C-alpha cells in the first residue's frame, strides 16, 4: 500500500519556481543529509477518531471480509494505519518547514519529479473505534544519488510514529524518490499536460503525475550565435555584460553591435553580481506547467547600470519591492538549465535608484 505524497509547493514561493534554497549541485548531498533527523510533521492530529464508517468503507474498497473488522468488538484493519493520519482533500496539518525545505532543495537541484516507491509498517497494538490518533514524523534518511529506470535522484524516507490515545500504536515508513527524468522522455515543448485518468488504480495515477511533472520544465532560453556567450558565461557561473569596443557603452541584452555608436566590436565585463529591483510583477494567471503561481518576476538593474529580467528569491512573492538590493546566484532549475537569479540581500547598501521619471 502506497500513496502519493504531495511534495511540491513550498511555503515560500519567492520568485518563479518557488524553491527557497539551493544553488548549484556542489555539496548537495551534504546539504540533503543535514535534514536527517529533522521533523517532517509535528504534533499531527488525526482528522477523525478511529471509526466504524471509515473501516467499513476501507473493507468494501479492499474487498476485505475479515470478521475482525465488524461488530461490537471490531478493530481497524492494521493496514489502515496511515489512513488515520491523512490530510484528505482539505490538506495536511502540522507538516514541518524542514520537509518543504528539503523538497524545495531537491526541486532546485533539478530533481523535481516525485514517485512514491514503498512503505513499511509495524503494528504495536490494534486500533479500535473511538481511539484518538496523534502522530509525529521525522525525516529518517536521504539516500545518496541513485540512478533508477525513472531517472537519477535521491530516496527520501520518513518515519511516522502513530499514537492512539497517547500510546504508540504503530510506525509507518514512507519512501519517495525525488528524481530528474532522463531527457529522452521529454521531447517537444512543455505544453499539454496529460489528462487525468479515471481508473482508480494508484499506479496509473502515479504514472500520470510523473508524466505531468516530467513535462513541467521551464521554457528554455532562446540561444543563438549572437547571445551564446552569455549562456556560456552562466555555465561558468559568471554573468557577462557586453561592452562596446568603440564607445565602451555597456549593453544588455546581447547584440552583435552597439546602438549608441554602431560599432561591431565588443568584449565582455563580468557583473559584480549586485543590483536592485528596478521593477517587478507578480504572475497569477494564466498558469503555466513549469511555474507555480503566484510568483514574482523582477527586472534587475545591475550595479553596472544594465538591466535584465530574472527571478527574485529569498523573500515571498508578495514581499518583492522596487529598490530592494539583490545579489546574484546561480540556480539549477532542472537537470539541463541553470539560471542567474537574484537573492534579496538587505545587508547591501541600497544604491540610489537610477532613471527615475
Amino acid at each position, binding site marked *: 500500500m502506497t500513496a502519493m505524497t504531495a511534495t511540491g509547493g513550498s511555503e515560500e514561493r519567492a520568485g*518563479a*519556481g518557488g524553491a527557497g534554497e539551493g544553488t548549484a549541485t556542489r555539496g548537495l548531498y551534504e546539504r540533503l543529509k543535514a535534514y536527517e533527523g529533522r521533523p517532517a510533521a509535528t504534533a499531527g492530529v488525526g482528522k477523525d477518531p478511529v471509526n466504524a464508517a471509515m473501516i467499513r468503507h476501507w473493507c468494501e474498497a479492499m474487498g476485505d471480509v475479515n470478521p475482525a473488522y465488524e461488530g461490537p468488538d471490531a478493530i481497524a484493519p492494521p493496514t489502515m494505519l496511515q489512513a488515520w493520519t491523512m490530510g484528505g482533500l482539505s490538506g495536511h496539518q502540522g507538516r514541518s518547514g524542514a520537509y518543504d525545505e528539503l523538497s524545495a532543495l531537491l526541486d532546485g537541484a533539478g530533481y523535481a519529479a516525485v514517485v512514491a516507491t514503498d512503505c513499511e509498517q509495524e503494528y504495536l497494538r490494534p486500533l479500535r473505534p473511538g481511539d484518538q490518533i496523534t502522530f509525529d514524523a521525522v525525516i529518517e534518511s536521504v539516500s545518496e544519488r541513485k540512478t533508477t529506470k525513472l531517472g537519477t535522484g535521491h530516496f527520501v524516507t520518513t518515519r511516522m510514529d502513530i499514537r492512539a490515545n497517547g500510546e504508540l500504536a504503530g510506525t509507518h515508513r514512507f519512501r519517495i524518490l525525488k528524481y530528474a527524468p532522463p531527457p529522452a522522455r521529454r521531447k517537444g*515543448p*512543455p*505544453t499539454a499536460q496529460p489528462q487525468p485518468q479515471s481508473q482508480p488504480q494508484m499506479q496509473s495515477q502515479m504514472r500520470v503525475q510523473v508524466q505531468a511533472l516530467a513535462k513541467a520544465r*521551464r*521554457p*528554455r*532560453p*532562446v*540561444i*543563438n550565435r*549572437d*547571445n551564446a556567450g552569455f549562456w556560456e558565461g552562466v555555465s561558468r557561473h559568471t554573468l557577462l555584460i557586453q561592452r562596446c569596443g568603440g564607445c565602451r557603452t555597456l549593453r*544588455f*541584452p546581447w547584440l552583435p553591435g552597439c*546602438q549608441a555608436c554602431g560599432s561591431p566590436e565588443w568584449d565582455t565585463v563580468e557583473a559584480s553580481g549586485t543590483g536592485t529591483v*528596478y*521593477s*517587478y*510583477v*507578480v*504572475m*497569477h*494567471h*494564466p498558469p*503555466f506547467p*513549469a*511555474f507555480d503561481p*503566484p*510568483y514574482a*518576476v523582477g*527586472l534587475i538593474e545591475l550595479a553596472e547600470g*544594465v*538591466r*535584465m*529580467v*530574472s*527571478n527574485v528569491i529569498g523573500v515571498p512573492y508578495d514581499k518583492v519591492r*522596487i529598490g530592494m538590493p539583490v545579489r546574484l546566484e546561480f540556480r539549477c*532549475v532542472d537537470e539541463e*538549465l541553470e*539560471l542567474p*537569479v537574484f537573492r534579496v540581500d538587505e545587508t547591501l547598501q541600497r544604491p540610489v535608484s537610477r*532613471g*527615475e*521619471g
Partner: protein
Amino acid sequence: MSLHRPDALSGRAAIAGIGATEFSKDSGRSELKLAVEAVHTALDDAGLSPADVDGLVTFTMDTTPEITLAQAAGIGELSFFSRVHYGGGAACATVQQAALAVATGVAEVVVCYRAFNERSGRRFGSGVQERQPSAEGAALGWNLPFGLLTPASWVAMAAQRYLHTYGLTPEAFGHVAVTGRRHAARNPAAYFHGKPITLDDHAASRWIVEPLRLLDCCQETDGGQALVVTTPERARDLRRPPALITAAAQGAGRAQEQMTSFYRDGLTGLPEMNVVARQLWRTSRLTPADIDVAILYDHFTPFVLLQLEEFGFCAPGEAADFVAADALPLNTHGGQLGEAYLHGMNGIAEAVRQLRGTSPNQTPDATHVLVTAGTGVPTSGLVLSRDGAGAPDGSSDSAPGGPPDGP
C-alpha cells in the same frame, strides 16, 4: 524624413468605407471568411465593388494572405499589397501604407483588413513558452526561462514602475476601464453592450499579473474589420462623407523591443508613441487642444495613460486624473476593453464614425480625431479629419516640401 519635417501625405488620402463582422467569442467560421465578410461590408459602405480594389494591406500577423483574400472576395489584379509587422502596432500603419499608395498613384482603392479568431482560436493571452532562435525570438527569449510569458506581464513590468514613480496605486488604472465600459454599454456592436462597470468593480477584479487586474486587460475577440482608403477626390463621389487622413505616422524608439523594452529610460513612457506624436502634431499642425475625440489603443489600461502623456494631453503622472475628469472623449466605441479586440482596427472605424456623426457616443461636430495603434510595440497613429475642416492655422502657408493645401 518625417522625423524632422512635416511630410507630404497630409490630406492626400481618405477613408471612404468601414466594415466589420459581428464581434463574438466564437465566430464559427474561418479567419479568411471573416476577412472576406469585413472587406465586402466595407466596400458596400463606401459604395464600391470588389472589382474596384487594386490594393490590399494587412498585418504580418494576419493569417489571410492578400492574394487569398482577393481570390475569395472577387478582387482581381493587385498593383499594391503590403503587410505591417509588430502586432497591433500595425493598425494605423496599414492606413498609412494605403494612403502612401493612393497619394502616389501606385493604387487607387486600397482595403486594409484584419480578421482573426483570437478568442476561439489562438489566444494571445495564453502566452509564449518557446521561440525560434532568430533575432526576434532571441529578444523575447530573455524573459521566458524566468516565467515572464504573457502580454499582460510585459505591460505590468512598466506599469509597476509607473505607479512607483508617481506614487500611485493600481486603482489609478480603473478610470480607463470604467470609461471604456461606459461607452461600450451604449454601443450595440460592443461585446459589453449594456454592461458598464464601476471603479469598485475594477478594484475587486482578480489579479492577472500584478499590478494588472482582470478589468485592466482587454477582452479577446473573434471578428474582422476592414477600411477602404482612396483619394479624397474619389471619396467625395462615394456614398459616405470622407474621413481625411490629415496625418499618419509610424514610430519606433531607441532600444525598441516588442513589448519588452525594459532596458531603456525610466519605463514610465512610450518613446515609440512619442515618435508618432511628434510627427502627427507637426504634419497636422494641430495640438492636443484641437482634438475632439481620442481613440487610444487599450489592450491594457496603463498604456492609455502613458499615451495621453506622450501626446501632451496632460503632464507625466497626471493621466489618471485626466481620464477621471472626463476632459476628452476617449475610446467612444468602448475601446478594446469594451467593444472588441480587433488589434486596433475597430478604433479606426470608430474615428470615422465620429467624423460622420454616427458614433454610438457621438461627440458634437467632431472635426479632428486622434487614433493610435498597439502600445509597447513599434506603433503608428493617425489624425483623421472631417472633409473641409483644414488645420486650425490653415495649411496654405506650408513650406516647400510641406503638406499641400488642405481641401
